[in-house]
């Protein structure tokens, strides 16, 4: 990883940068070639949702790319101002609809910061278990979709979905729903996990490393995949940090920033796990980082399932109805599978928040999509946008 100068600068030293260093480079066009403007999306099988890219092509090469979204805009933030704190929780499920439990945790964390609410220990363990299961199934789907976009016609995707189904069955047994779980509450979790559920989860987690091995054997040394992904969509670390990129995309560029380690929210500092980093910042690195993070998730799951204590899962003094935190504001963030998911809440003492803001990782990771795609071909654009791993529910809210 190339250390940027800021890491080694002396105290008081001001760094100079060239003008427009963080703006996309202008591509040179051949004298007499005409630009072809293509609109990729919003109805498109490979754009991960209702997402449009206005691409200007010089032959097969991308000269300019503008992402256009808002097709799934439901004004979730305005809805949040009209709902009480408890009633907003089911809406957070629908932000990044693949990872509803992570969204629940981020919102619960922000409200707990705002109100100074404590969480019992068993609830913290359950949160970690569910969040890591969510991360596993999200990365599996993300890799599966990426492979499908390369033309593998869905077979690795269906293997990933087979594992995902087993995890979703666990979610349904505990929370009542496969995807829209609505399980976390500020102050803990909604219902306790039975010993039978924990045993089932342990059995599933035991089978997960076998699946990751199989997936890796299927794909990681595949020559077609390497030829298509290596050297494509390179993202430099300084640009990644400056553009607010977070999550596996940032770590694939070599920047070791994982909010689980930095903030240590919940009880993550009790578990030993590593943070995989990439070297080149291309599509292949992002794919490998996600694969390795799946293995680390399994490690965390094994530790959490071993150490989970008995106890309550909700603070009994907390009343969810008519919950009125003191006036003030709080910004709470977690390491969601897609990146840094943050909630910014301003309370005015009433039952509804005054301002309810979601910091969407997918939207902000799209900021440098143009930079990554310039000079590549259209087929690579599909791969690069797939490696960003966006979900439109989060981008548009």
């Amino acid at each position: 990883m190339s250390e940027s100068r800021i890491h080694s600068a002396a105290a008081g030293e001001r760094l100079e940068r060239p003008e427009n260093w963080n703006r996309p480079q202008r591509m040179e066009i051949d004298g007499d070639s005409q630009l072809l403007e293509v609109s990729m999306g919003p109805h498109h099988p490979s754009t991960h949702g209702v997402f449009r890219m206005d691409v200007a092509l010089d032959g097969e090469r991308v000269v300019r790319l503008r992402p256009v979204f808002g097709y799934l805009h439901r004004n979730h933030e305005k809805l949040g101002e009209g709902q009480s704190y408890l009633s907003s929780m089911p809406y957070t499920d629908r932000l990044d609809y693949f990872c509803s439990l992570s969204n629940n945790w981020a919102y619960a964390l922000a409200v707990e910061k705002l109100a100074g609410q404590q969480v019992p220990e068993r609830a913290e363990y359950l949160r970690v278990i569910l969040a890591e299961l969510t991360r596993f199934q999200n990365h599996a789907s993300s890799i599966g979709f990426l492979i499908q976009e390369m033309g593998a016609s869905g077979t690795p995707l269906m293997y990933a979905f087979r594992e995902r189904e087993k995890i979703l069955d666990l979610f349904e047994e505990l929370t009542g729903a496969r995807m829209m779980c609505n399980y976390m509450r500020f102050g803990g979790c909604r219902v306790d996990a039975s010993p039978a559920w924990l045993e089932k989860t342990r059995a599933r987690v035991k089978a997960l490393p076998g699946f990751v091995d199989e997936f890796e054997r299927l794909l990681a040394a595949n020559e077609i995949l390497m030829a298509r992904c290596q050297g494509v969509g390179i993202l430099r670390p300084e640009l990644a940090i400056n553009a607010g990129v977070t999550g596996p995309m940032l770590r694939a560029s070599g920047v070791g920033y994982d909010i689980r380690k930095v903030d240590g929210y919940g009880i993550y500092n009790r578990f030993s796990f590593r943070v995989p980093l990439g070297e080149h910042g291309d599509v292949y690195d992002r794919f490998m980082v996600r694969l390795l993070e799946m293995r680390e998730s399994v490690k965390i799951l094994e530790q959490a399932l071993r150490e989970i204590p008995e106890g309550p899962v909700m603070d009994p003094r907390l009343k969810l109805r008519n919950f009125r935190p003191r006036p003030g504001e709080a910004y709470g963030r977690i390491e969601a599978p897609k990146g840094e998911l943050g909630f910014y809440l301003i309370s005015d003492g009433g039952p509804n928040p005054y301002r309810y803001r979601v910091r969407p990782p997918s939207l902000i990771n799209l900021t440098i999509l143009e930079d990554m795609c310039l000079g590549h071909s259209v087929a690579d654009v599909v791969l690069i946008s797939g490696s960003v791993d966006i979900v439109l529910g989060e981008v548009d809210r």
Partner: protein
Amino acid sequence: MFGEGILKGLAETARNFFGSFVSAERLTTVEYPEQRIAPFEAARVFPFLVYDGEDPLAGLRCVACQICEKECPPQCIFIVKSSDKKPDFVGKPQNYPVRFEIDISVCMSCQICVEVCPFDAIKMNTEFELSTGDRFGGLLLNLDQLVKPNEYYHRIHPAGAAEVDARLAGEKAKAEEKAKAAAEAARAAAEAAQAKAASEAAAANTTGEAGAAKTTEGVGAAKAAEETGVAKAATGEAEAKAASDAAKAAAEVASQKQPDQEGRR
């Protein structure tokens, strides 16, 4: 060798393909609708209302408190409260819903209505085969379509239903104990009143002879007083009480006779 990675991948695919014929782990699909997977106990699809016993309206647990209507995030519940009351499972008179409608095209199955209901009246159903041809009316469930017996709730959610029943039985037992204690207190108060009456009657015995003719009335009035007072008194005490009551009753009857006759006319 170039292409080794691809060949290894193909070997994995072959293992999955042939393995799905022999191993249940690899074949994860079910031929719906000929085969069905039983829904999980905790699964939540759309809400329904629980009633105890045989009569859906008499045994309905819902008291139309409208808390679920207020807390529902997409506001899909519509309740109209009754103006009269009916007794609930502990005998206390409560309102009931005249109209209770859930628009399941809006409902997002979040289960917040179940969480906030203080009466365990609304629970989540697991039935999902609800498709209908009528886009608006067919997806608006009214009270008749929403009520289901407690036995149905036991069938779909045995553990939860058992817990709810235990809790409600506990509340009922507590309420009955409270009623018994109240009855005991009333009886003790009535006995104290009788003792007082006995001492008063001893003093009023001389004037009691004036009302001796109306002793039968007095006995009737005393019997009525006993019934309302819940206590059984000894005959001696009854007579003393009757004497003092008769004195009071005579005065009352004398003042009331005129309006009665007028009323009957």
